[in-house]
């Protein structure tokens, strides 16, 4: 099996790996939409979707009722509905951009997986920890930011191509908001990389290196960056909420004043693509947060993964690493939903004030503080 795989041409191997990663992220995004409904119900003290029952599946003795109460069949019914509904295109839209927008939403959010490591395995031959990643490039985090920032065009295009007032307002808000928060988000990770990169000719922005530097021995080496740089983590998290258009920052949608925002004129499968893209974006954003500030695949602070899995078979070690990482990521997805169903939405002017007058100065002061502190520590 492994022989056969290794004999394939490189590009086939790469495509296979990519397809597997996409095949993982899309079910996660689907499960997120179910989790969102269940968690919102839980927070609001109601049972949530629990009625639909698929013919056949629902009558399996123990599993059937459990699946029914989890609302899994609602998810399946939703999916089937989106696929089979008639594809209505309003007459007043710009057709080319109208169809392009959902694609532009989905493609960047799936592309970012390429540079995000989602686990690690112990390579017995070299006795080192290797990342489970599609492409371990030096520009790591910058590539995530760069490709992720392209998804703003989906909102702008959807708003503009819909050719009506509310979607248009949503698109304009989206472009302003995403650009504002990009600044703080990028500034907030600078201290992390200042800390990770030792003086010398080599430097890296790879996310694997960040996790490696959180799994060193000793008090400072094993410390997760969320303890070392809580302010960075906070600014990054707030900016992440704004970048993924999650409440309390979902200005582009804000159904109270803009009907549905940028996706008012969208229905059926195109609408669901927007949502798969949003959840994929959220999943990867949470993953990046976990890698940067929560030690990636290290199970606990000061407890690195490497000695734990060193003696185990490669596949088991890899599975443990990936599970720890995914577990933390799922917690952050839960946090996204928790916040969404707890906090009210900001007003648009509040979003802009928060971004430019609060978050950005904090992020800049933070960078200066950590740059000075790290310089002093290096000198000592």
């Amino acid at each position: 099996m492994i022989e056969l795989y290794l004999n394939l041409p490189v590009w086939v191997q790469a495509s296979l790996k990519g397809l597997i990663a996409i095949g993982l992220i899309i079910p996660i995004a689907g499960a997120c939409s179910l989790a969102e409904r269940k968690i919102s119900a839980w927070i609001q003290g109601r049972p949530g979707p629990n009625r639909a029952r698929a013919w056949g599946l629902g009558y399996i003795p123990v599993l059937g009722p459990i699946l029914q109460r989890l609302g899994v069949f609602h998810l399946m019914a939703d999916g089937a509905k989106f696929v089979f509904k008639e594809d209505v295109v309003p007459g007043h839209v710009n057709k080319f951009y109208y169809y392009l927008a959902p694609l532009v939403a989905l493609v960047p959010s799936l592309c970012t997986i390429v540079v995000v490591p989602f686990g690690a395995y112990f390579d017995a031959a070299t006795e080192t920890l290797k990342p489970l990643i599609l492409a371990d490039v030096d520009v790591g985090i910058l590539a995530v930011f760069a490709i992720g920032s392209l998804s703003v065009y989906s909102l702008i295009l959807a708003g503009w191509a819909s050719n009506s007032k509310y979607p248009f307002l949503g698109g304009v808000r989206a472009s302003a908001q995403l650009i504002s928060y990009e600044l703080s988000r990028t500034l907030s990770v600078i201290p992390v990389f200042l800390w990770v990169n030792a003086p010398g000719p080599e430097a890296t922005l790879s996310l694997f290196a960040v996790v490696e530097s959180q799994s060193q021995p000793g008090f400072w080496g094993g410390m997760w960056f969320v303890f070392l740089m809580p302010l960075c983590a906070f600014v990054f998290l707030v900016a992440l909420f704004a970048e993924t258009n999650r409440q309390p920052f979902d200005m582009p949608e804000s159904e109270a004043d803009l009907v549905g925002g940028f996706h008012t004129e969208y229905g059926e499968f195109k609408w669901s693509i927007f949502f798969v893209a949003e959840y994929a974006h959220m999943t990867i954003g949470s993953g990046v947060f976990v890698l940067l500030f929560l030690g990636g695949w290290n199970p606990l602070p000061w407890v690195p993964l490497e000695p734990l899995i060193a003696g185990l078979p490669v596949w088991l070690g890899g599975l443990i690493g990936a599970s720890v990482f995914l577990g933390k990521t799922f917690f952050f997805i839960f946090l996204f939903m928790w916040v969404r169903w707890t906090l009210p939405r900001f007003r648009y002017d509040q979003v802009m004030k928060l971004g430019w007058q609060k978050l950005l100065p904090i992020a800049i002061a933070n960078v200066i503080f950590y740059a000075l502190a790290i310089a002093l520590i290096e000198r000592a």
Partner: protein
Amino acid sequence: MADILFHLFAFLTIGSSVAVVYNHNAVNSALAFLVGLVGVSGLFVLLDSFLLAVLMVLVYAGAVVALFLFIIMLLDMQGGERPPFSKPTAVAGLIGAALLTVCTMTLIRNFGGLETAEMGAIVPVGANLKHYADQLFTTYLLPVQVVGFLLLIAMLGVIVLSKKFEGMEDVK
């Protein structure tokens, strides 16, 4: 493989640049510009300078073109009638034509005379992250500062020109 990709990205870049100029719809132009930037960043990747490629996408494609689109949408510019030649257009056209002539002349005169250096002999300034940063803060410190200052002046100028001041109260 690299050759095919080079031609692909080169045609993408040139084609979309032509589309930027010839499109009547400003939104189409901005999006063609976006495609062109992605093409340029693809060319950077082929040159192994991943940092520049990523910065190109991050800064220009991710933020600058989004701002362009924001402005275009805010002003709701429709292509409309293009005015016939005015005096500045004529002068600009003359200068452009002169420059093009000089370039063509140089190209014809020195055709094939361009020295091709060994790949190993070229200092990869943009390839290594730290080297790039080091160069920015040492060799190219003055140009970076000057360009930053120019951008600051441009920004202040735009604010001053676009805001309507009424009396000294607003200035404060």
